Each structure stands twice: as C-alpha cells, then as structure tokens.
C-alpha cells in the first residue's frame, strides 16, 4: 500500500500536449466502450425482439416477415403450453425460494453458532459446492441419481422398503424432482446471504435480549428477521431472476416433459426460436419474459442502492 502510494506520489512529467490527456476525454473514454457494448447487447436486441414479435417470421427466412400486430401475443396467451410454462415458472419460484429460505436459515443459524470451531469452515465450503457446479452437470448428476434403472436413489429407497419413485417419469413427480434439484443447488446461496446478515448482528444485542428474558421467538421476530430482511429480499429477487432464465437442468433432465409437466418459460422460448424456428412467437415469449424481469429489476436496483448506502 505504501509502496503504491509512494509510486503514485512521485512527481511526474505530465505532458499535456494532446487532448488525449484531457481529463474529461479520459473519463469519457473509460466509460463509453462499456456503454456501447451493453447497448448493443441489450437495447438493440430488445427493440429488435419487439419488432420480430409483431411479425410472422421464420428464423430460417428472416427476410419474409409479415406484420401481424399483436397476433403472436394473442396466440401465446391462448397456447396451453405457454400458460403451463408461466404457471410452472411461477410455482417453481414460489416453492423453491420458500424452501430455500427456511432451510438456509436453519443451517445458517447452526453455522453461526459453530463459528468458534475452525474445522467447521471447511464444512461450509463443502456445503457451498452445489451452487458453483455447472448447472448442466447438475442436470446430469440427477439424471444419474434418479435414473429408473441404475439410479442410486430408488436403490436406497428400496433398501428401506420404499419406492420405486418415478422421479422424472411422472407428471407431479417430475415437477417435485425439479423443485428438489433447485433447492439442493440454491439453498447454499441463500445460506451465505442469511449468514452474512446474522453475522452483522452485534453480539451485545443478543446479550441484552437474554438479560431481558426474551424467548427464542422474540429474538427471531424482533432481532434476527429485521436484521436479515434486506439481504434476504435481495436474495429473493436474484433467485426470481434465476428462475426466469432456468433452462439447463430441465433441458437435460426432462425437456419439459413428461407431456408439458415441467415446461418453463425460457425452455418454451428457446424451443419456439431454435427448434421450430418460429422467431415471431419465440420473440413474443422472450419479450414477455423480459417485461416480467424489468418489473422485478426495478425493485432490485432500488434495493441494492439502499443496502449499499446502509
């Protein structure tokens, strides 16, 4: 630190002969490339997607686009498969995020109460592995574990006289399996956030609560929940956004099946665009996903600013 400071403090011959050395110019040059890049990757695709969504157009013949107005959107809202995808995505968001928060809170409490034991830190790293593993591989892992013939899950359940469970084979079972996978992969993420929140509570507040004779549920509702509220809300928003782009795991495990039982929004839009080449319908679906994301994002950005300012 001091070294860098000294290096920086060394008087420099600042040659100010060209406008390249102009401060305003430099700062602008720092920021403009990023803005152009992001605009090309977000604003332009958005405009183009809206344009496509108002046309009947094939991905294989983009030049022959016919204007159909809101036709694609009307068709979309009349398509049972799309409605199913909406329903499933919503269901998955609500159920998996709820389970994640409850389980994560319990584990976070356990980890916090064990934070005086050094070796427990290693366990925490192990616990976090699922959230770093490639999502596609997560799909593979559970295709293998839940496999109807050679899967270990049904073998173990059979050992205690249960099953066989159909896992990805039945309509309800498949949805529950997908939910389980989500909870398995993302509980560690919630746990990290909740733990960061819990660790920010000063220990003398716990002490004071104990002295005042507060019961555990008083501590929970009046001290712990208020302290972790902001960060959990942030976690919920990030997870909703994740659920809207949920794709890899269903792509390798169920492809939305059996029937339409595990169809989700991103998979629906992907299939319309790149399997049936229906760029118009696919873009309409993508625009709807985007609109939902924008509504949620508006909250997210405000929240992030608030947490940052605290």
């Amino acid at each position, binding site marked *: *630190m001091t070294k860098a*400071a000294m*290096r*920086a*403090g060394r008087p*420099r011959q600042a040659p100010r002969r060209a406008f390249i*050395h102009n*401060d305003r110019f*430099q*700062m602008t040059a*720092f*920021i403009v490339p*990023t*803005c152009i*890049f*992001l605009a090309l*990757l*977000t604003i*332009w*695709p958005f405009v183009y*997607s809206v344009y*496509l969504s108002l046309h009947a157009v094939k991905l294989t013949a983009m030049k022959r686009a016919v204007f159909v107005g809101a036709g694609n959107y009307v068709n979309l809202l009349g398509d049972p498969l799309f409605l199913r995808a909406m329903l499933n995505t919503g269901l998955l968001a609500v159920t998996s995020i709820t389970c994640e928060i409850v389980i994560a809170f319990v584990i976070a409490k*356990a980890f916090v*109460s064990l934070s*005086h034991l050094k070796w*427990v830190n290693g366990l925490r790293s*192990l*616990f*976090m*592995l*699922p959230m*770093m*593993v*490639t999502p*596609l*591989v997560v799909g*593979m*892992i*559970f295709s*293998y*574990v839940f496999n109807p013939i*050679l899967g270990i899950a049904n*073998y173990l359940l059979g050992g205690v006289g249960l099953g066989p469970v159909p896992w990805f084979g039945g309509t309800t079972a498949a949805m529950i399996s997908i939910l389980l996978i989500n909870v*398995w992969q993302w509980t560690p993420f919630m746990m*990290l*956030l909740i733990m960061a929140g819990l660790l920010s509570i000063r220990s003398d507040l716990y002490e004071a609560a104990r002295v005042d004779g507060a019961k555990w549920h008083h501590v929970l509702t009046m001290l712990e929940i208020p302290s972790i509220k902001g960060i959990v809300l942030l976690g919920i928003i990030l997870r909703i*956004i994740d659920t809207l*782009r949920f794709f890899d795991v269903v*792509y*390798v495990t169920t492809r939305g099946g059996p029937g339409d039982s595990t169809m989700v929004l991103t998979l629906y*839009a*992907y299939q319309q665009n790149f399997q049936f080449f229906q760029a118009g319908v696919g*873009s309409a679906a*993508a625009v709807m996903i*985007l609109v939902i*994301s*924008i509504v949620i994002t508006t909250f*997210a*950005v405000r929240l*992030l600013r608030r947490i940052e300012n605290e």
Partner: protein
Amino acid sequence: MNSDRFRPRDLGPIVLVVAFVFASVAPLLWLALAAFKPTADIIAIPPVWIPDFTYLENFRDVLTEFWPFIVNSLIATVGATILALALAVPAAFALVNHSFRGRDALADWILSTRMMPPIAAAVPLFVIFRGAGLLDSLPGLIIAYAGFNLPFAVWMTMSFIRRVPKELIEAARLEGCTWWQVLKDVVLPLSKSGLAAVATFVFIFAWNEFMLALFLTTREAKTFPVVISSFVGTGRVYWEYIAAASVIQCLPPVLFTFFMQKHIVSGVTMGAVKD
C-alpha cells in the same frame, strides 16, 4: 464464548450441519465415483460403492476424443474474462471517481442489464452473429460471454474501487497525474485482490454457461458443456463418459470455491454486501 473448543451444546448444530453437508456433497460425489468405473460396474446392482481409482480409461477416452472442445471452452472463457475486465475496470473507475450528471442513473442502467434474461437477446444475437460471420466462432462466444458478464463485472469492481482511500487519489491528482495514471498506478495496485475475485467469478460464470453456446455454436466452436449435453440422446447413454466429462467440467469451479471463499458473498451479491 471465544474459546475454540467443543461445547456439549454444539452437538445438535454439528449433527445438523454434517447431515446437510452430506446431502450437498453426496450426489456430486456419486457421479464423480462413476467416472472411475467400467461400464459393468455402473449398471451393477447392488451398486459398486468404492471403485478402483487406478481405472482411468474413461478420463483417457474423454480427453483424447473431446480435447478440442475443452480447449474451446478455455479460450472462450479466458478471452471473455479478459475482455470483460478490460471494459469493466476503466468504466467502474470512472463511475466511482468522476462525478457527472446522470452518473447514478447510468450505474443503475448498467446494473439493470445484469437482470436481462439471455433468452430475450437470443434471436437478435443469433441474427447479428449470422450476418457478421460470428456464428460457431470463438470470437463470437467471447463477445457474447463478455457482454453478459459485463454488468456484474462493473458493479463488483466498483465496490472494490470504492475502498481505495479517496485521499490517495486526490494526492496523486495534485501531483499532476492524469486519470489514466491514477488508475494504473494507484487504483489497480490497491485493488488487485478484489479484481482477481471479479475475474474469477466472470471466469466461472462463462465456464458454466450452456444455453448461449447451444445455439451460437454448431461444430467448430462447440464448448465442453454442449458436448456433455449431447452424451444423453436416444439409445445407449454413456454414463461413464458423462461422469468423467462432468468431473473435468466441474474441476475449475470446485477449486475456485475453496480458494475464493473469502470473496464469495460479495461475488453473489455483485458487491452489495461486503466480505
């Protein structure tokens, strides 16, 4: 309270923690073990619990046959990491140290692009790439991956640059340093470890990416996850290859999880929560 010794009342939490850690790790481990099994052992019932770890045929087969795609993944990921940081670091520096009208709005806009679902950009991206000859090419993947990780990189970098003491920057300015020199000689050396964390996260996100690669690449530039996904098709499923390939694919993120533990919280919240 501060002793690092075991207390009797720790027993409950320990049992709980160990049970959940087991549930987290067991499925991963079970697939990893399959990578060391010959076909007969994979389909054996009762299962072969502990394989012969000297059996490395599966890894050898996967590496010899699919090596080019692992290289593709590496080039796309490293390229995207470098490009994303090259763009994000100066932008983050300017957003933190240069006050201008609409600065917060600009930062918020950059952040909001992080929330955009990739599927919403899929067709337009596909169309531009097709027109520009970037389909199924590594430069194309690098551009796409860098772009989608840029908002995250800018925000997390901003959180690290903010920690550089303002006095140092002012002192350097008084000495006549240009902003470029301030960035290069003051800010970069002081936020090295933070930037390493940003780079690591971008690397992992890009390395784990699947959907974009699925429609942006077809043959030449296919990434390793796309190859792995093609192992499951109709007919016989080669679980031993899936397992070996999955182990290779997961190696970088798993290693990083252990090395980056310190920065993980700030990584998953884009720097909103300090580590």
